[in-house]
């Protein structure tokens, strides 16, 4: 069976006044991939993600996410994907259990299913003894792992992670990526942005945006080879870099 791509964009554009934030990008993401979406600050990543998650209407071009059209079926996209960002994911003034119930409700899950998944998640993350504490009192690492688990509560086929790992200790960062790898191993698709270029090496494929365009796309191995670099940071600096003289 040939599966159609889970994300496909064709000449996708977003323009704010005279400024072209996303400039005719075309790419596909295959089912089951960990796809890294990299770029410098201001390269247009966030704008592209907002279009792909149904939050922003494109100015031109086409894109389908999970087979849904970004212009006409954005509500279906929002209901079907998972999303986590570093800045905001969990309600700090709610407990882990309340967050799980809240997001389960948003995604239209049945009460039994929510309770079942909650037990799984809290057990897996060793959070059972914290389930009635406010999220704001949890250590950052636990918060992030919980935020990821909540973003996949409804087992979405596709999950967007927007800079998910900032500031955590290295063990937590590894554990976090191991959760992501497991979810991908189970057949789900991960679309992830990060400033840690060593994390690009976890991805099956990586795209690098420069000034609204996709300047490079390929497996980390291929990109390192074609840019004659020892690691992804060097690839990135070659593409994006204009070092201070």
């Amino acid at each position, binding site marked *: 069976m040939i599966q159609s791509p889970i994300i496909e964009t064709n000449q996708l554009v977003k323009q704010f006044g005279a400024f072209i934030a996303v400039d005719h990008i075309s790419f596909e993401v295959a089912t089951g991939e960990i796809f890294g979406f990299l*770029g*410098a*600050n*201001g390269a247009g990543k966030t704008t592209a993600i907002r279009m792909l998650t149904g939050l922003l209407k494109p100015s031109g071009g086409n894109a389908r996410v999970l087979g849904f059209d970004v212009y006409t079926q954005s509500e279906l996209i929002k209901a079907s994907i998972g999303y986590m960002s570093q800045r905001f994911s969990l309600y700090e003034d709610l407990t882990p259990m309340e967050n799980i119930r809240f997001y389960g409700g948003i995604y239209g899950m049945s009460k039994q299913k929510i309770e079942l998944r909650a037990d799984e998640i809290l057990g897996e993350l060793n959070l059972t003894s914290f389930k009635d504490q406010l999220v704001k009192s949890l*250590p*950052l*690492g636990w918060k992030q792992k919980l935020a990821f688990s909540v973003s996949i509560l409804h087992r979405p086929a596709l999950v967007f992670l927007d*800079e998910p790992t*900032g*500031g*955590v*200790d*290295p*063990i*937590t960062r*590894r554990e976090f*990526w*191991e959760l992501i*790898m*497991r979810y*991908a*191993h189970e057949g789900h698709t991960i679309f992830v942005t990060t*400033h*840690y*270029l*060593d*994390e*690009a*090496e*976890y991805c099956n494929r990586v795209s690098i945006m420069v000034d609204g365009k996709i300047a490079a796309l390929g497996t*980390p*191995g291929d990109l390192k080879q074609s840019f004659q670099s020892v690691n992804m*940071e060097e690839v*990135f*600096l070659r593409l*994006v*870099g*204009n*070092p*201070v003289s």
Partner: protein
Amino acid sequence: MHSIVANGISKTYLQKKEKIAALQEVDIAVKKSSLFGLIGPDGAGKTSFIRILVSLLVADKGEAFVEGLDVVKDLRMIRQKIGYMPGRFSLYQDLSVRENLEFFASVFNADIQSNYYLIKDIFKHLEPFQSRKAGQLSGGMKQKLALSCALIHKPSVLFLDEPTTGVDAVSRKEFWNMLKNLQQYGMTILVSTPYMDEATLCDEIALIQSGRIHQVDTPENIIRQFPEPLFAFKADHMYRMMVALKNHPEVHSCFAFGDTCHVVFKRLTNVRSVAHSLDLGGYGHVRYEEITPNIEDCFIQLMHAK
């Protein structure tokens, strides 16, 4: 000769009647004119420690000196000698670029003209936008302006609290180049960061976590002191192989590191035979090599050792 010295610094916060130890018996000694990195995750105590060193927060226990001055008793004199760039954006958003610089210069009775050479390389990127409001600058530009403002009174010691957090790799690299350039003026620089890969850009580093310092040394020495051989494993079916390694009785620790797993085995393990048995396990082309640890490996090892 040391420019920054801290002995047994402890700080506890009260949160809802609960005592939270932010810093426990922290000692450092930073050599004059060196670039010192305070490296650790969020919540490690980096900001509290820097705030104590710049005389904005008083420790519960211990003593600290900057350029020989006591951070509690000599705070007025200290503030003339140091530059401080806090983690959260420190500029006046509704003043222009120029006004921000003039404001910080006037607070310290400093003359922009005579100290301009210090910030020239940094500020030249901002010159086209001198009348723009600071709040309307891009992240990278704000960072350059904040650094210029922290330097304009020509401090002999510069404290930077997470200047590169959330900044892309290119701007981070630029920023570190600027710090290296400042060393030529003999300035001592203490910089905190959660990015472990920035450790190797420092002369010396302190690895800090949960209010305690794991180790202080040069990055090279910390790497050299990694106690066990470290192996990088690869296979076609990475996730499955990683799970197998994690559950393997001979494995001491195993963590995903990009497209490899970094593995430390128990003493006297025959790594070759473990790899061979994994290969027979159907993970596809299991291959491995012994590698030099990076600072993250060291940090993980120190976290484990606790």
